[in-house]
Each structure stands twice: as C-alpha cells, then as structure tokens.
C-alpha cells in the first residue's frame, strides 16, 4: 500500500488525479452531465497512458463527479448527479434561507468524511476479500455474475420484467463476433465488420452519452434563481456533534454501495430516512435541517468506496461507472478480480490509494473554488451539448480508427433512447453487455470440468448461496406483497 501511495505521488500520476478530480467536479456540477458520461468519454484518451495514470484519472473523475453534484443540488435544487437528489431536500431550503455557504460547507465535509470512512473499508476489506475470492472456481464465478445481474435488474427502478429484459438484451448484443472458446464466428451473418463484435466503448458512449444528449436536447432547461455563496464556508467546533450521523451515513453508504445495482442515490435516501427516524426533531427534516445534508452527502460519497470493493476483488461492477472502469482495466490488459492483487498490485492498491487522495483533492478544490464552479451552470447548454457530441464521435473513432464504431455508437444511442422511452432501465442493459462474455466463459468452463453435469453445482456451497440470493431477489417483491397483505388481513380481523 505504501508503494502504491509513493507511485501515486509521482508528479504525472498526481497531475492526472488532479485533472480527473477537477473535471469530475465541473461535470458533476452541471445538471444532465454525469461522471459516467465523463469517464466513458475520456476512456479513449487513456489508451496510450501508463495503467496507473489512467486509473488515477478515472478514479478522480468518479469521486469528483459524484461530489460535484451537491453544488447545484444546494444552490438550485437541480442535482448535478442522481446521487445528489436527496441533498436537495435540506440543502436547497438552507440556501434559500441565506445559509448557502453553511450547506455547502457541511455537504463538502460530509462528502469527504464519507469518502475517507469508506476508504477505510476498501483498504481493510479488499485484500482479505480478494484472498477469499481466490477459492472461487468457474461455478462460483458464473453464479456470482448471475446474482449481480439479477440484483441489478430487479433493483433498478420500474418493472422487474423490464429490468431483466434490459439485462437479457445487453447480454444478447454481446454475442456477435468470434467465439473465443472455439475461434469461430457467431451471429455475424456473413459481415466482416461484425467479426470483432460491438466494441465496449461505442456501446457505452452510445447507450449513455448519445441517448442522454438526444433526450436532453428535446427538453428545455429553465435555470431558476441561484443564491451564490458570498462569504467563506463556515465550519464550527460544535459541528463535532454531527460525528455520529456522519459515521452512520458513511457506513450505510459503504454497505449499500457494495450491493450491485444500488447506487449512491439509494444510499443517500436510506441514510436520510434512517437519520430522520432516529432524530429527536424529525419534523425539521426537509426544511433546511443540517443533519439532512450530512446524511445524504456522507452516504452518496461513501457508496463509491463500497462499490469499488467488489470491482477490484471479484471483477463485479455494481453500476455502469464500475463497468466502464472494468473496460478501462481490460483495455490495459488487466483483469479485475482476485488475481489483480497478485498480478498487478500497483493497480489494485493504486485504485485504493487514488480513491483516498481524490477525496482530499476534492475537498481542497471544492472548498476553494465552489463559488466559481457554481457559475458553470450559466454556460450555454446548446454549445456544451454540441461539443460533447463531437467528443463522442472522436472518442468512438479513436478506439480502432474506424467509422464503423461511430455508426455503432449512433445505433446504440438510438437503442438507448428507445429503451428509456419504453422504460427499460439502461443500467442492466450495459452491465449485461459487459458481463455476458464473463458469464458464458465461466459457465462453459464449469461444464467442461464437470463433463456437462449441471448437478455439480449442488456440491458448491458458495455457488448455491449466490443462486439462492439471486432467486430471493427476484421473488422478494412478491413475498413482501404477500406478507403485507397478511398483515393487513390480520388488522381487519376484529
């Protein structure tokens, strides 16, 4: 770990971390632009970079992107990122009552503390969890991927069937190309361009960036009245009283971040609800109550650290952003998972170290520049979107110097827009696309080892646990409804 910190403090790596965090904060502050979009767009630029520099840039963007969302959530009630939605509940009323500086100060501090506490979990748990995951064989990996996909699909907002459909469609789009197991073309229908399948980056940029810009360009955005911070950001000695709330929010955020499919927005909501329930003044929540801002911001930032744990220890992405990070590692010939700690410890520990330093950089940047960052929202949206579209085209082209990738990107942009119109969540779609080759490879390896015998899984306790959890996740809404109905029936019986 010390070596990782030393490597991180090399001028180039530190510069990339600084650039990444700054870019992330700026993009996170602009409503409609997300850390996911930024990471997808800058991924092509990392091709020629050293892997450690690439990872530090992307981790900086991730941390900055989530944290930057709090600025507009507090000043304009327009969350820069979905993870900051809950921050608007108390942050905006505080700003409206002339306490914008105080809300920003508490939000930034809570974000940093949440990040540092979840870093503690990340640094403490990851090596041990990776050692444990080394015991996993193909059956365990296959069921783990299946569980992650099912959880992500079921826990996405909206219909369960549409969540699962999104995952299945994503998996289906990953099928065309050369089947690596036997070296034969599959579902290419005679097209040479299809032999390499659909590239990860054009699919990601298309499904997320293009579809979002097409959607946003159709929707007018009215910027309301903004209370800009005028004085320095105040933090007092008495704020130590918020320490238990900060700790609760950070722990909740970390553990929720660990679960696939539950992002920072849900972590913030659960933390906020918990704080409200245990508060002696629950009626003050939603009216500009300081613990509300702390609960939301500590949890949404801590969720990043939590989500990085399964990513580096098992190669399982909890959200689209982590799926792109997996893509970034794969581009540099690195396979995220338990062997990362053995094969490329500088990367595994580098991610952990970069996460901590990115949080510290975020504190310094946001504390000093929040007043200026807040002005970004006044930039003309039309020019911003046109510029991003140019980056999308050049980013997709740069992967293979091929316009086929640009057409694939546009195609997936339209598919993404169509899926969103039909209320099919894009998260399971993209993660299904990323995880499909891993799931197939592991299933085929499992069956080769067991001579085609599916009952072998019965002798694999971890695999059975993962399968049971996947089944429980699918069945849980129906079980919960039935329990609720019985409870209501009992109440009705005199």
């Amino acid at each position, binding site marked *: 770990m010390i070596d990782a910190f030393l490597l991180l403090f090399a001028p180039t790596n530190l510069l990339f971390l600084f650039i990444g965090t700054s870019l992330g904060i700026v993009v996170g502050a602009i409503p409609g632009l997300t850390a996911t979009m930024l990471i997808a767009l800058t991924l092509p630029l990392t091709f020629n970079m050293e892997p450690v520099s690439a990872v530090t840039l992307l981790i900086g963007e991730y941390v900055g992107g989530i944290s930057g969302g709090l600025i507009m959530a507090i000043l304009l009630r327009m969350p820069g990122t979905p993870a900051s939605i809950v921050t608007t509940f108390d942050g905006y009323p505080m700003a409206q009552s002339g306490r914008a500086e105080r809300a920003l100060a508490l939000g930034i501090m809570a974000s940093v503390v949440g990040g540092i506490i979840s870093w503690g979990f990340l640094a403490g748990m990851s090596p041990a969890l990776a050692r444990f995951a080394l015991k996993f064989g193909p059956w365990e990996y296959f069921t783990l991927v299946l569980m992650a996909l099912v959880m992500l699909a079921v826990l996405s907002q909206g219909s369960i069937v549409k969540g699962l459909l999104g995952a299945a469609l994503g998996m289906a789009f990953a099928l065309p190309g050369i089947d690596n197991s036997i070296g034969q073309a*599959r579902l290419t229908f005679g097209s040479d361009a299809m032999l390499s399948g659909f590239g990860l980056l054009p699919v990601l940029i298309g499904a997320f960036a293009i579809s979002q810009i097409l959607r946003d360009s159709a929707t007018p955005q009215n910027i309301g009245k903004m209370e800009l911070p005028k004085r320095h950001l105040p933090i007092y000695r008495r704020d130590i009283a918020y320490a238990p709330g900060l700790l609760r929010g950070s722990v909740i955020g970390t553990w929720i971040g660990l679960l696939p499919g539950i992002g920072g927005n849900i972590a913030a909501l659960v933390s906020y609800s918990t704080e409200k329930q245990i508060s002696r003044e629950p009626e003050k929540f939603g009216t500009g109550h300081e613990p509300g801002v702390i609960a939301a911001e500590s949890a949404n930032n801590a969720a990043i650290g939590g989500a990085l744990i399964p990513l580096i220890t098992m190669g399982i992405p909890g959200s689209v952003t982590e799926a792109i990070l997996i893509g970034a590692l794969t581009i540099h010939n690195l396979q995220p998972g338990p062997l990362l700690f053995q094969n490329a410890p500088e990367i595994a520990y580098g991610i952990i170290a970069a996460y901590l330093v990115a949080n510290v950089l975020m504190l310094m940047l946001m504390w000093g520049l929040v007043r200026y960052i807040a002005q970004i929202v006044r930039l*003309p949206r039309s020019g911003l979107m046109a510029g991003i579209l140019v980056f999308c085209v050049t980013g997709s082209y740069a992967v293979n110097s091929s316009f086929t990738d640009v057409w694939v990107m546009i195609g997936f942009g339209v598919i993404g*827009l169509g899926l969103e119109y039909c209320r099919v969540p894009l998260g399971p779609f993209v993660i299904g696309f990323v995880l499909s080759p891993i799931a197939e490879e592991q299933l085929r390896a499992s069956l080769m080892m067991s001579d085609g015998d599916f009952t072998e899984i019965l002798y694999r306790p971890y695999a059975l646990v993962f399968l049971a959890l996947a089944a429980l996740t699918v069945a849980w809404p129906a079980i919960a409804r039935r329990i609720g109905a019985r409870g209501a029936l009992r109440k009705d019986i005199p």
Partner: protein
Amino acid sequence: MDDRTRATLADLALAGLTFSGAAVLLVGAASLPPPRFEPLGSAALPRILGSILFLFAAIIAITAIRRASNGKPAPTAKATVPKADPKRGALVLAALIIYAFMLDVLRVPFLVATPLFVTATGLSIGARSWRNLAAFAVLGLILAGGISVVLERFLYVRIG
C-alpha cells in the same frame, strides 16, 4: 393520445422488437455447428437468451394488452418528461448522422465538418440568431483544432 395509450403502444412495440431480436438469435444459433470440444457449444447462450427474450416479450405484450382492455393507468406514466420537444432531439440526431456520413463517406475534412456540425446542433437546441451562429462556428473551429492536435500528437490517430 393520452399517456396510457402511449405507454401501451410503446410496450407493444418493445415486445414486437424483442420478438424479432429473439427470432434473429434463434435463427443465428440454428446455423452454428453442434458442440465438439466442450459440452455447451457456442449456440447454447444464443438459444437460452432467445428463449428468455421470447418469454419477456410475451409477458410485456400480454400485460400491455390486459392494461389496455382493463383501462388501468400505465404504472409509471407520470414519469413522462414535461414539455419535451421531440423535433429538437430528431434534428440533433439527423445532424449527428449527417456529420458521421460527411466524415466517413464524403471524406469531408474534420476541420470543416466539425464547425458545420457544432453550428447545426447548437442552433437546433438553442436560440437561432446570427450572434449564436457565429459563436457556434468559432466554438466548432476551436474544438476541431484542439481535438485534431490531441488525436494526432498523442494518440497518433487521424480523423477525416
């Protein structure tokens, strides 16, 4: 057209497209050779996914038809974005397709195509005025120049 009808039609279209996708998978899988070196073979996953997609498409279609016949409201119909202007989105998409076509097929230089694209997209989304036209053209020129330098100097990639 009310939200319920729109949601029902969207679901039916989704089910139709999913049926077609499932059929493509199953037809493609049928032309793949049987497994030789390992038990599963390369046709197994397309077959499994094709069947799953058929099932989901059927569920979505049946749910949509039942909802339409029962007169129940669409479950998340209220999530529709208010005051959206689909024409703007269509214009941006058209500009994007023309931009890619110019670069790929017509071989228009990147430094020419990009300012044209940025101007067209900017004016499709934002206010249409001579001042904006000039501003977007300059922005496009700066972007094209900057990106060309980054691509050629650092990534050794030439575009357009």
